[in-house]
C-alpha cells in the first residue's frame, strides 16, 4: 500500500548523497505512522489491560471497592483450596477432555471437507458456502438449533441413530455425553480450518501429484505419501491455534446451557463447566474478579507451555 511513496524516482546524481538520510528519516516516520494505529491498539487494549489484570490477580477485588492485596492467595486457593473453589479442577478436566476430542475431530472434518471441495468439479462455490455457513451463523441460533437436534424426544440425531438401531440418548443432560456432544458441534463449525486446508491443497504443485500418479500411486497412497505430508505446515498451524481456542472455549457452552434467562452453571454435574465459563462465573457472578484474573493467568501459562511443547515435538515442515 505504501509502494508509491517508497518507489520514488531516482534522485539526481548530485543531490543523492545529501538527500538520502533525510529520505530515510521520512520513510521511518511514515513507517512508524503506519504501524501506530496497530501499536496503539495493542498497547491500550491488549498489553495494558493484561498487565492490570496481572496486578489484580494478586488482589481480592469485587469490582466495586478498592482491591485489597493478597499476594499469591488467589493462586494458592485455586490450586489447593477445595472449599473456596470446589470445581476448579473439574473445570480443568472438562476443558482438557473437550480439547482432546474437539481439536482432532475438527481437523479431520475440515481436511475431509477440503479434500471433497478440492475434488468437486461443478458447484464448488455452493458447497463451500454451505460448509462455511455454520461459522457465520449467530451463536445464539447455533445453540437453539443444536438443542433441538440433541433433544431426547424429538431430536433428529436420536431419530437417525434409531434407524440403525442405536437407542436414543439424552445428549446434553448425561454428564458423560455432554463434552463429546459439544465437540461435535465444534467440528461442524470447522469452516475456517476447512478454508485454510483448501488453500493448503491449492498450494501443492500439480507436478508433484502427477509424478506420484506416474509412479503408480493410488488415491490413498497419494494422500498418505504426498498430500498429507505437503500439508504439514497447515496442519501444524491449525493444531496450535485450534488447541489455544479449545482451551478457551466459552461461547458454545454458554449458548447451549443458557435459555429462558436462566443462570448458566455448567450443565449436569458441572460436566460442561469449561475453564473460561468457570472464570466468567467468578468474575461476574460470584464477585471474585481477583481470583478470575488469577485463573486467566494460570490459563495463559498453561497455553504457553502447551504451545511450546507442540513447537518442540510436532513436525512442522512439509516433507
Amino acid at each position, binding site marked *: 500500500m505504501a509502494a508509491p511513496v517508497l518507489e520514488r524516482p531516482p534522485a539526481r546524481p548530485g543531490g543523492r548523497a545529501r538527500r538520502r538520510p533525510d529520505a530515510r528519516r521520512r520513510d521511518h516516520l511514515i513507517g512508524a505512522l503506519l504501524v501506530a494505529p496497530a501499536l496503539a491498539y495493542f498497547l*491500550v*487494549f491488549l498489553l*495494558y*489491560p493484561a498487565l*492490570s*489484570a496481572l496486578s*489484580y490477580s494478586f488482589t481480592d477485588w*469485587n*469490582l*466495586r*471497592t478498592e482491591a485489597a492485596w493478597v499476594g499469591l492467595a488467589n493462586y494458592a486457593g485455586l490450586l489447593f483450596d477445595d*472449599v*473456596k473453589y*470446589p*470445581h476448579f479442577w473439574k473445570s480443568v478436566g472438562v476443558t482438557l477432555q473437550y480439547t482432546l476430542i474437539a481439536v482432532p475431530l475438527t481437523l479431520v472434518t475440515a481436511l475431509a471437507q477440503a479434500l471433497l471441495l478440492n475434488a468437486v468439479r461443478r458447484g464448488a462455490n455452493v458447497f463451500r458456502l454451505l460448509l462455511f455457513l455454520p461459522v457465520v451463523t449467530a*451463536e*445464539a441460533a447455533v445453540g437453539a438449533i443444536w*438443542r*433441538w437436534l440433541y*433433544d*431426547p*424426544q*424429538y431430536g433428529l440425531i436420536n431419530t437417525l441413530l434409531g434407524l440403525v438401531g442405536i437407542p*436414543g440418548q*439424552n445428549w*446434553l*443432560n448425561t454428564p458423560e455425553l455432554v463434552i463429546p456432544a459439544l465437540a461435535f458441534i465444534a467440528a461442524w463449525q470447522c469452516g475456517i480450518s476447512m478454508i485454510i486446508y483448501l488453500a493448503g491443497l491449492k498450494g501443492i504443485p500439480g507436478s508433484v501429484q502427477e509424478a506420484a500418479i506416474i509412479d503408480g500411486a493410488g488415491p490413498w497412497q497419494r494422500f498418505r505419501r504426498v498430500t498429507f505430508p505437503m500439508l504439514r505446515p497447515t496442519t501444524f498451524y491449525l493444531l496450535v491455534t485450534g488447541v489455544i481456542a479449545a482451551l478457551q472455549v*466459552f*461461547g458454545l457452552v*454458554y*449458548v447451549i446451557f*443458557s435459555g429462558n*434467562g*436462566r*443462570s*448458566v*452453571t455448567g*450443565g*449436569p*454435574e*458441572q460436566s460442561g463447566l469449561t475453564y*473460561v465459563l468457570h*472464570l*466468567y*462465573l467468578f*468474575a*461476574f*457472578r*460470584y*464477585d471474585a*474478579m481477583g481470583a*478470575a484474573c488469577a485463573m*486467566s493467568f494460570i490459563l495463559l501459562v498453561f497455553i504457553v507451555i502447551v504451545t511450546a511443547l507442540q513447537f518442540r515435538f510436532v513436525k512442522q515442515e512439509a516433507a
Partner: protein
Amino acid sequence: MSRGLARGTAVALLATALAACGGGDGSGGGTSGSGTGTGGESRELTFWMYQDRTPQAGQVIERIRRDFERANPGVTVKLVKIPKDDYNTKLGSALAGGSAPDAGILDQPLVSKYALDGTIEEVPAGLIDEAGYYRGALDTNRAGGKLYGLPQDQTTVALFYNRRLVPAPPKTWDELKQAAARVHAADPDVAGMNVPKGDGYGAWMFPGVVHGAGGAMVDDAAKKVLFDQPPAVEALQLWVDLQKSSPRAITDSDKPFENGRAAMTISGPWDVPTIKEQFPDLDFGVAPLPYKTEPAGNIGGENSVVFSTSDDPDLAWKWLAFLAGPDHNGAVADALGGFPVHLKARVVAGGPEQAAFLEQLKVARARPAVPQWIQVNDEIIAPAIESALTGRATARQALADAAARTRSLLGWTG
C-alpha cells in the same frame, strides 16, 4: 490515565471478550456517567433498567417517565435499557470504571452485597412509609437491618398443571406424588412432573419447597446452616420420589409442559402469556405450590437502588419512590413483569392464574441475606441436589456434605 479508567478498560475487555455472545448489544455499555450537576434548573438523572419485555411495557415506562418530568420541571430522566442477561456484567464494569448511573434496578441477592461494601446508599429516613409495602418484598432490600433500596415488583413461582391430565391441582406433597404417579402410569410417554434439576435455577426454587415443610435454608442472624435438617432433606426426597414418575428422557425435551409431555411444572407469571400465545390449545391452570406442613414459596423480583457515586441522590430517591408509590407501582410492576409491591397499588387485571400467584406471594419468603449466597446456590447446593436426583448420594448425605462445605466457605460453625 486514571485508575478508574484503567479498571474500566480491563474489565470491559474481559466482559466483551467473554460475553460477546450475549446477544443484542444495542444500548452500549457504560453510557454517560452520572447525572450532571445539582446546580440551577436543569438536573439530569440516569436510570438503568432491564430491556423492555414488550413494546407495550416500554410505552408504559415512557409515560411514567414523562409524568415524572412534568411533575418536576427542569428534570430529565435518562433511561438506559440493558438486556437482562448482560445487566450485572455491564453494571459491574460501569462500577469499576467509575461510570455507574445515578440509580438502577438491582437483582435481589445483590442488594446485601452492594450495601455491605458501600456501593449503594441507604434509603433516607422518611422517604417512604414502610407500612405501605408488602413486607416480603421490602425485606429483600435489607442488609444488617437497614433498608438499602426500594422494591419495584415482586414475583414468585407456583405450580402449573395440565387440566387434561391433572383435573384438580394437588395441595399437599402426598397428593402431588399421587397425581404424578397416576399420570405416568396412564401413559408412560408422559411425565408426571417436570422436576427441577440440580442447576442454579433448581437450587433457587428449592428453598420454597423447604419452607413448605416448615424449614429454612439458613438462619443468617445466628449464622447457622439449616439445610441439612429434616425439612430440607424431606424436600429433596420429594423431588427424588417425583422423578420415579417423571423420567428425564421426557422432561429434558424441549418445553415438556407446553408440549403436553409433562403434566405439571413449576414456573412464574412470566410464562403465562408466552404459553397462551405459543400453545393456545394447552388447557392449563396455576395453583400455589403443594406443601407438607404449611403453605410457602419463594420470592423474586426487581429492587431499585441509588449508587453512592450519584451527584444527585435526592432526585434519584424521588424517582424511585415515584415508581414504587401507590399511584404508579401497579403499572410499573406490570411493565416489569411482576406484581405490585405497594399495598395500595392497583393490580393490573390479569387472567385467572393471577389469584394463585398473589396467594403464593402472601407466604413468600425472601432468600437468605448472605453476600456469598449466589456462589453457595450455584456451586454447593445445585450439585448436591443433582447428586441426590441422579442417585449418586441419598438426599441426607448430599445435603449434609453441602452443609459442611457451606459452613467452611462462610466460616460459620452452626
